[in-house]
């Protein structure tokens, strides 16, 4: 008499009808040895489920939080970069709408000031790593007809572009350094996590400011927040580089 294999015994506990299971059940009912084998198998499975629960030796949340914050920061940079590009595009569109035709032979230096405000190159948006669900809608519509930038708004816009470029450069430096992939001590993780949280808080405030400026005019408040963001990124770079220098990496 052929006894049931482990495959056959295991198959008897699978949901649904398994080919040959009828014959296997008949054998099981008549064979004490196979019935005992099935009991040992089920007992072994029950003992597996009863094994003690293993717990991590260290709290991994600070490391997870730092990665999440860094990821949100990267996605935020892409979102804001996209908004700046949209702003530049809408300004360019407004200028095209408003621009007076230049008479043949006229001095091209007489081009309206608004044209000079259009960046000669698109603002770099940085590498797009993943879709940004918080992406602000692209401002495809032109600002109100006749919108000519005053000097203050123009100055704020130029400062914004410069500070955003600085922010992207610091992000790129952090990415190149890849702090998440390096061993860190608890103190460095805590300081870095705190800075990441503060950057995330500034990002939330920036989102709120953008929502409150429907015409997407450059805002002194946005400029202040971007400067704060760059300050925090500078500090974050210092934390990682200083620690690295200290331990000889």
């Amino acid at each position: 008499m052929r006894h049931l294999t482990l495959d056959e015994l295991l198959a008897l506990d699978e949901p649904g009808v398994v080919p040959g299971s009828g014959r296997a059940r008949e054998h099981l009912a008549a064979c004490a040895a196979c019935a005992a084998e099935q009991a040992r198998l089920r007992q072994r499975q029950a003992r597996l489920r009863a094994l003690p629960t293993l717990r991590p030796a260290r709290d991994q949340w600070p490391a997870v939080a730092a990665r999440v914050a860094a990821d949100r920061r990267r996605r935020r940079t892409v979102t804001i970069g996209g908004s700046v590009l949209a702003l530049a595009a809408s300004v360019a569109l407004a200028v095209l709408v408003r621009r007076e035709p230049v008479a043949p032979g006229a001095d091209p230096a007489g081009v309206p000031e608004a044209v000079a405000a259009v960046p000669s190159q698109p603002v770099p948006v940085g590498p797009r790593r993943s879709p940004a669900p918080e992406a602000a809608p692209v401002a495809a519509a032109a600002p109100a007809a006749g919108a000519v930038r005053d000097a203050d708004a123009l100055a704020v816009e130029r400062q914004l572009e410069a500070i955003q470029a600085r922010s992207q450069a610091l992000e790129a430096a952090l990415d190149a350094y890849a702090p998440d992939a390096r061993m860190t001590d608890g103190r460095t993780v805590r300081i870095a996590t705190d800075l990441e949280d503060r950057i995330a808080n500034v990002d939330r405030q920036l989102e709120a400011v953008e929502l409150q400026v429907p015409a997407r005019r450059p805002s002194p408040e946005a400029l202040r927040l971007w400067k704060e963001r760059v300050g925090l990124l500078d500090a974050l770079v210092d934390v990682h580089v200083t620690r690295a220098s200290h331990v000889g990496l």
Partner: protein
Amino acid sequence: MELYPLANAESVVARARAGDAAAFEALYRAFETPVYNLARRICRTAEDAEDVLQETFFEVCRSIGQFRAEGSLWGWVRSIAASKALMRIRRNKYRDTDELPEDVMEHRREDAGLRMDLEAALERLSETARAVVWLHDVEGYTHEEIAAMMGRTTSFSKSQLARAHGRLRRWLGEEVA
């Protein structure tokens, strides 16, 4: 019923979707232990399990918007953890003891002349076999689900389980002469 219920789960998920850091941490605290336990039982080392734990919750935080509220939150988190653990063992460079010649295996089995306990026997299985045993017998995944996660066939999962139990039976001294 949720195996690992999270108080105010709907509210926590909604806040997490809005980017609330405290909500992310609440998700982590609720499922840290079962995720680590699953990872540690599948992976060979505690370091690998910690990496899987981090990668799981990083993915949970990034993908919380994709969680369907009518499903089981733990079921969703666990599927991510299982997937990350399986990816980890695929990347590992450890030798599978399954691949040792049978005569070597027999010699090793008889070396100590002692029955192993279940923990030791489970650790001795190859990572693939141990993963199938844990996912099927403990976590309750079907062979179809395990095969899909591993990118293998249902037959592969079934044969791995049977072979694993054959080894466990022998190492635990449960073989009947």
